[in-house]
């Protein structure tokens, strides 16, 4: 049973990654003109090559990348490249490889993503737990409707409002970028403060929008848990409220939230991409935005592939550690 589940789960990941790679391979070839080749020719023209030179260059390009081979050979080769994470060269920053472009910015994205996730998950779950707890103040109930309404709006639309009020009207936070232009990134405190200040608005727009989802999920689970027999028993035993709340209710209601995390991962990532490109935050979202702007197809394909791959892997990891977090499944403790 367990092995079958593992196999199925790995199979799903493989299928997802294979689908992404296959789409990336065939889509450019399906479109009436091959944008990759077109772009090469365009680059060559702007570089001042003569007509003859382009032909030669395209030929050389085709031989180099194996485009003169039959389609199935190219396809297998492409799958091999993807498996080794060889995403090819960037068309807009040519000698650079796409993977290097991504490596330059990935830290920014991962950093802000982990931060927003941690804050919204913790705050949201806590808020949801408190809303559902019968002994918490009544005013918390009135938070549900606004939270839910906000979470139905895309994060970057919310970001636009934040920028207008907090960066333009009241100039508390900078409008865009990851740090003040002209500063030299070093390890000084001033630099980190500058970075933090720039990250506030992008982070805030993601956090505010995703808070509601976590809160409502938690609230639902808390209501279910509160009806369980062991809660009634624990209360009858006269356990302290604090202990009841944290060790009995929250502990058990928190688990399904981890599943929710896995399910909403793709949604979170795409949301952040849009927020980054709105704020010009120097992460992977802005890289994607720029690549689209300059028609760098290799970068577009590489970025989407890598994102799909990482979302798949993280979801898999979450699915696999879920049983470890469940106290009911853990064995070998106590008697």
């Amino acid at each position, binding site marked *: 049973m367990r092995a079958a589940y593992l196999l199925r789960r790995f199979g799903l990941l493989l299928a997802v990654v294979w689908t992404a790679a296959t789409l990336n391979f065939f889509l450019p070839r399906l479109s009436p003109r091959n944008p990759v080749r077109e772009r090469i020719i365009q680059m060559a023209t702007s570089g001042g090559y003569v007509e003859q030179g382009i032909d030669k260059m395209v030929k050389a390009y085709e031989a180099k990348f194996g485009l003169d081979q039959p389609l199935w050979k190219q396809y297998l080769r492409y799958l091999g490249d993807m498996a080794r994470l060889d995403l090819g060269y960037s068309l807009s920053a040519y000698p650079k490889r796409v993977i290097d472009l991504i490596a330059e910015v990935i830290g920014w994205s991962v950093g802000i993503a982990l931060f927003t996730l941690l804050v919204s998950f913790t705050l949201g779950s806590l808020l949801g737990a408190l809303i559902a707890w019968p002994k918490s103040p009544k005013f918390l109930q009135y938070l549900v409707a606004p939270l839910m309404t906000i979470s139905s709006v895309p994060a970057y639309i919310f970001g636009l409002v934040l920028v207008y009020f907090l960066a333009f009207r009241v100039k508390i936070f900078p409008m865009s970028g990851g740090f003040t232009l002209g500063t030299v990134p070093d390890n000084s405190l001033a630099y980190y403060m500058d970075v933090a200040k720039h990250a506030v608005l992008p982070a805030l727009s993601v956090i505010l929008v995703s808070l509601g989802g976590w809160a409502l999920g938690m609230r639902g689970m808390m209501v279910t848990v509160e009806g369980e027999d062991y809660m009634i028993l624990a209360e009858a035993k006269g356990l302290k409220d604090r202990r009841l709340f944290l060790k009995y209710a929250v502990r058990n209601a928190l688990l399904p939230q981890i599943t929710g995390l896995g399910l909403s991962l793709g949604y979170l990532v795409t949301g952040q991409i849009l927020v980054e490109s709105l704020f010009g935050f120097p992460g992977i979202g802005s890289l994607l935005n720029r690549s689209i702007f300059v028609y760098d197809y290799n970068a577009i394909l590489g970025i989407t592939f890598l994102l*799909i791959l990482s979302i798949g892997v993280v979801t898999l990891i979450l699915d696999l550690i879920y049983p470890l977090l469940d106290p009911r499944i853990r064995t070998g403790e106590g008697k």
Partner: protein
Amino acid sequence: MRFFRYLRRNKRLAAGIFILTFLFLFATLGRLIAPPERAYPLAVPPNKPPSPEYPFGTDSQGRDLLATIVMGTYLTVRIGVLAGVIGLAVGTFLGFISAYYGGVLDTIIRWVVDVLLTVPGLLVLVVIAAMLQRTLKPTSLSLILALLAWMGPTRTIRSQVLSLRERAFVRVAKLSGENNLEIIFKELFPNLLPYLGASLVGSVTGAIFASLGLEQLGLGAMREPTLGMTIYWVQYYGAFVRGLWWWILEPVAVIVLIFMGLFFLSAGLDEFANPRVRRVV
């Protein structure tokens, strides 16, 4: 009249219908005041704040923003509805086949749905749209969005049909000699209607969400005044730095209204479909 009395009990359904009706009237009647041709560049003097002549102001390309927002509401909602309807139609069809006939077909459909639901849709759409970038029109954009709008409905309809077909009334119908098609259209379909409604709202919301995202990344119909493109131009022309607040806040307000309307509508439909389920809000 019974409908209106029901709306008094189901406040969220009422709110959703009210907001969406308002937007519908805005998009249709608005055209009478603001002719659509003013929604294209160089139609009016640029960068004017709201005034009696241009109640919503004008943007840097010389569009009348009232006309732009009116057209944008219409175009964006049309993109979403078209994609959503196609997605729902395909999804319902596949869901029925999957649940009703089962077997290998069911296995294949379920796998494809599982795989595609795991892949973040917007990223796949980015790849497709990037390949068609310069040729995109609002209609082709909604067809692209429809490619990834059918999995949700397939899953919902499949599970509903699976649970419905075991009910007594379906068995009775089968025993009384109704054939498969009769059972599908006379017994199952009417019972599925609330779910179909909720699925439609869900896929329309998803499609509008994705269309705005694509447009914000510069993968939309560049020449058309959709709401997403308006937001794109807001950023492109740096409306923030220049303090053109009307240009920023108007499309944002309409987008928020659209999502709130759809959200209340789906919450209301949920309550209509399962009155026993505890309210979420």
